[in-house]
């Protein structure tokens, strides 16, 4: 089962990933090749195989613990592309604030 150019565009939007128009075709072909390959799973007997719900069967429930280590605001903001001393700065989230 392949993936069409329009679906690639949709998935890229879901993933918040800008893709140049001229790449859509190539990406669709590459993803289709991989999706064809994974159909191998259809030949596998999965009777009684339930998907694991966690990475390790040994991962137990743990008591709540308070993490005493924390970053100072200055440390957390130090690597931000844009900050004003106490906040991360981003472009306007809400449009047309001015009447």
């Amino acid at each position, binding site marked *: 089962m392949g*993936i069409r150019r329009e*679906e*690639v565009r949709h*998935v*890229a*939007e*879901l*993933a*918040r*990933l*800008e*893709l140049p128009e001229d790449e859509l075709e190539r*990406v669709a072909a*590459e*993803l289709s*090749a*991989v*999706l064809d*390959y*994974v*159909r*191998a*799973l*259809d030949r*596998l*007997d*999965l009777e009684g*195989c*339930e*998907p*694991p719900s*966690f*990475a*390790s069967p*040994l*991962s*137990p429930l*743990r008591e709540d*613990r308070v*993490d005493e*280590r924390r*970053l100072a605001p200055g*440390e*957390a903001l*130090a*690597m*931000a*592309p*844009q900050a004003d001393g106490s906040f*991360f700065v*981003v*472009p*306007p*989230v809400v*449009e047309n604030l001015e009447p």
Partner: protein
Amino acid sequence: MSGAELWRLSARALAAAVRAGECTAEEAVSAGWEDPAQEWEGDVHAIVHADRAARTAGAAAAALSARGTDEARPLAGVPVVVKDNLCTRDYPTTCCSRILEDYRPPYDATVVRRLRDAGAVVTGKGNMDEFAMGSSTEYSCYGPTRNPYDLSRVPGGSSGGPAAAVAYGLAPLGLGTDTGGSVRQPAAFCGVLGLKPTYGRLSRYGVVAFGSSLEQVGIFARHTGDLALAYALLAGEDPFDATSRPGAVPDVSGWDTGVEGLRFGWPANLWREGVDAEVVAGLEEAAGALERAGARRVPLDFLPGEYSVASYYLVATAEASSNLARFDGVRYGRRHEASPDLHSLYTRTRGSGFGREVRRRILLGTYALSAGYYDAYYLEAQRARARIRLEHQAAFARCDLLLLPVAPSLPFRLGEKTEEPLAMYLSDIFTIGANLAGVPGLSVPLPPAAGGLPRAVQLVGPEDGEGLLLRAARALEMRGDRSRLERRNEAEFAWPSRR
């Protein structure tokens, strides 16, 4: 002791020399950079972030802590190369991606902190495929690493930088991460040992996440004893990693006690086709060496690796699409400047910051998780993963460990697979199973092939089977001749030669 000798020593011998005052920590740390690196690094390009001031500060700290303490600083003054997706306070941590250019973490990964506590010094950050997605270290924003045994070939990946650095002598130990074979396959291509521990055994705190349910920090070494020591120091529960494995760490102190009576599984159905003759010959050679050392071969059939590859490239990409959502140009990393609104800030930052392979995997994972396809792809892949785990458990009811190829071929040429994603994925066909099953795997070098390229075999064990893997690796390292190694103070290693 001069630098020319120091860089050839095992980690244990080097630390012993520092503790005994035969050389300073400063000399131990700079030895690798003065000698082999000056000859090799320009061609091989194993290191992406180096910093003389950080090395000097690290050596000074190690020197201070080494004084008068034998047991407490087992790695006193030992240089270690760390993959660029492990957080280090004193070096950038970029995952070799434009989107994290110049990023400096405010903290050390737990494994890095444990290394430093043991007296080791981080002397460089190793090159890698961007965000650990790749099998050749060609998808790095800093350009590829080359194989020190043949500069026209790849070192494997994604942890190709640390593997190559340990192979040519920059450091006796290296750290990588292994999500689908990213420590074992480059170890095989570079002729060094590469261990992927049991899932959860080494902390993932401070590892930039890609496939959280699959990945483990792995260790590169040139000697089995060094590997056992590093594993013992790094393994253990970490309250900062919710998936870290509770309970006692496997005792690996018996790494040199032989393999008498050990049963190794021999699933010859896996290499009947599609595997190079030199790889198959290596398997026969290793099996013979284990048998001569007293182990027993147990022929069995095993589930073909294509099912693991199929399951993996859905599970891993699904997890990647979720994990990499954090790179949005807001809190850290690079931001696309021409972004008038928040939506375009996300899409442009991510579109221009991620490389081709990373974009491909994010898209594949998003697709596998999206409405209408979740059951057909992601859920089925997870059920296959359960089947693959059962398959491993069944095998380990009949034998103590499995003998497998690491990769289907010897190191391939640069550019050979970069245009064919699927061909690249298939170079992990024998390593992915251990990640899906959460069991440990170890790549063990063999004497080189006729043309001089490194060869290796893989040992895969049950959960917490690290001790068994190390014992078998030791038997292969000696190849029946203990005195050969003892005569040379564990320092013998098949160094790459200049062509």
